[in-house]
């Protein structure tokens, strides 16, 4: 017995391509992204936008990989804008020039989220794998010059979490409207690199304090978000606001998923938008139904008073850490598998001075 599907979605996450000039070792694309090639064509994406709007979507995030590598991005933004969707571009900024940004503006783009791997040039270039820092800052200035709201997104990990004050200062200098200080989620590439990326508790607490003070100081000017790492919380995250409750993600190849990494789960078949409509998938897809509501929940979730707040946490994390997607997220201190998370924390504290190999997205290992 599974729960009924909500009568609508709020946000479509359109992963237009897995191609990207960067090689960040915490990329949210699947580990086997290089084997997934046949991308949806323009007509497919236009239809997906129409269907998402009909299904209630109010927002669309164009992301990837690097969505600017699709030369039909302007056409897709234009359609989304005609559908009155709030359209955000989530980009590395690398292939972006002012002319293209202007074209996106006239196509109706509402907002730009720019990744910045580190407020320090050398560290930013090292993590992203290319000399991108100066161009990223230039893109940030164009974004503001052309009147877009600018979100700077900094993924936090052990090497850059001590730079939160510098990230805030840079956001102020650039006139960013929003700064996302997002602790790495340890899934996919980031899980492969967890020993090198997980910060210590002391680092985290100091960063959180700096972010809290900046948030109070900049209230009404810059919205500062500090996304807590679930590895250091007692309770899991309400991943995606619950499985298949608000978001629908379409991969470059057209698979419809409830979250970025759902395709990593075994024994679930995800429908393709080329074969079924979004409305049908949302309502009837067995994979969307699998973890909707509470019927699937094991103890301790089943009788937990927080089950309607965190929905048992992240299914992909439960699978990645325990091999069983239907267990309580091990980041919850009530999980019988919480020792796995505690052990990872201990290792992070013990290992900070050791040479740890980073495995970069799509490529070679590099010692640091």
């Amino acid at each position, binding site marked *: 017995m599974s729960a009924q599907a909500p*009568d*609508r979605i*709020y946000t479509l996450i359109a992963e237009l391509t897995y191609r990207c000039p960067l090689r960040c070792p915490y990329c949210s694309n699947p580990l086997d992204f290089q084997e997934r090639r046949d991308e949806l064509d323009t007509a497919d994406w236009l239809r997906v936008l129409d269907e998402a709007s009909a299904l*209630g979507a*109010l*927002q669309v995030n164009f992301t990837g990989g690097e969505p600017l590598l699709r030369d039909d991005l302007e056409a897709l933004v234009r359609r989304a804008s005609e559908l*009155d969707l*709030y359209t*955000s571009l989530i980009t590395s900024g690398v292939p972006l020039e002012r002319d293209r940004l202007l074209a996106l503006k006239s196509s109706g783009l*509402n*907002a730009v*989220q720019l990744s910045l791997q580190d407020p320090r040039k050398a560290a930013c270039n090292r993590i992203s794998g290319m000399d991108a820092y100066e161009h990223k800052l230039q893109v940030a200035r164009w974004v503001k010059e052309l*009147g*877009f*709201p600018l*979100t700077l997104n900094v993924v936090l990990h052990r090497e850059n979490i001590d730079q939160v004050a510098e990230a805030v200062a840079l956001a102020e200098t650039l006139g960013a*409207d*929003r700064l996302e200080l997002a602790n790495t989620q340890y899934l996919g590439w980031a899980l492969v690199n967890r020993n090198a990326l997980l910060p210590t508790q002391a680092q985290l607490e100091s960063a959180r304090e700096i972010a809290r003070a900046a948030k109070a100081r900049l*209230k*009404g*000017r*810059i*919205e500062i978000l500090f996304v807590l790492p679930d590895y250091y919380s007692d309770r899991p995250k309400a991943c995606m606001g619950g499985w298949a409750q608000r978001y629908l993600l379409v991969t470059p190849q057209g698979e419809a998923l409830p979250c970025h990494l759902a395709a990593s789960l075994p024994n679930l078949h995800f429908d393709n938008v080329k074969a079924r409509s979004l409305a049908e998938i949302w309502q009837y897809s067995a994979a969307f139904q699998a973890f909707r509501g509470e019927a699937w929940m094991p103890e301790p979730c089943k009788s937990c008073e927080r089950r309607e707040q965190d929905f048992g946490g992240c299914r992909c994390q439960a699978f990645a850490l325990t091999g069983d997607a239907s267990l309580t997220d091990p980041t919850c201190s009530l999980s019988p598998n919480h020792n796995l998370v505690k052990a990872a924390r201990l290792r992070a504290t013990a290992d900070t001075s050791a040479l740890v190999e980073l495995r970069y997205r799509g490529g070679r290992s590099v010692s640091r």
Partner: protein
Amino acid sequence: MIAASARPKLASKAKLRLDPKTQKQVLLYPEKGLELNATGAAIVGLCTGEHSFEEIVLRLRQQFSQGDASALEAHVSAFLTTLAERGLIEGLTP
């Protein structure tokens, strides 16, 4: 209280539209959305930068005629201040 001559304006990051599923106005901005009730929607709809705060309150009083004037003014001021704290409304200081 917001100054009478202030001209509140919807910030460029915010977009006001009808949600056809609920028939309510929603204020959309990066990653988020706020569902507005009828009064909220009327207030935000007047934040174009053309009307002063005083005019906005006057218009609302004509539209929602019940209640006393100073309570309405305080309510509108508090609502706009909350939106300004989220960066959704600009121009609260004349």
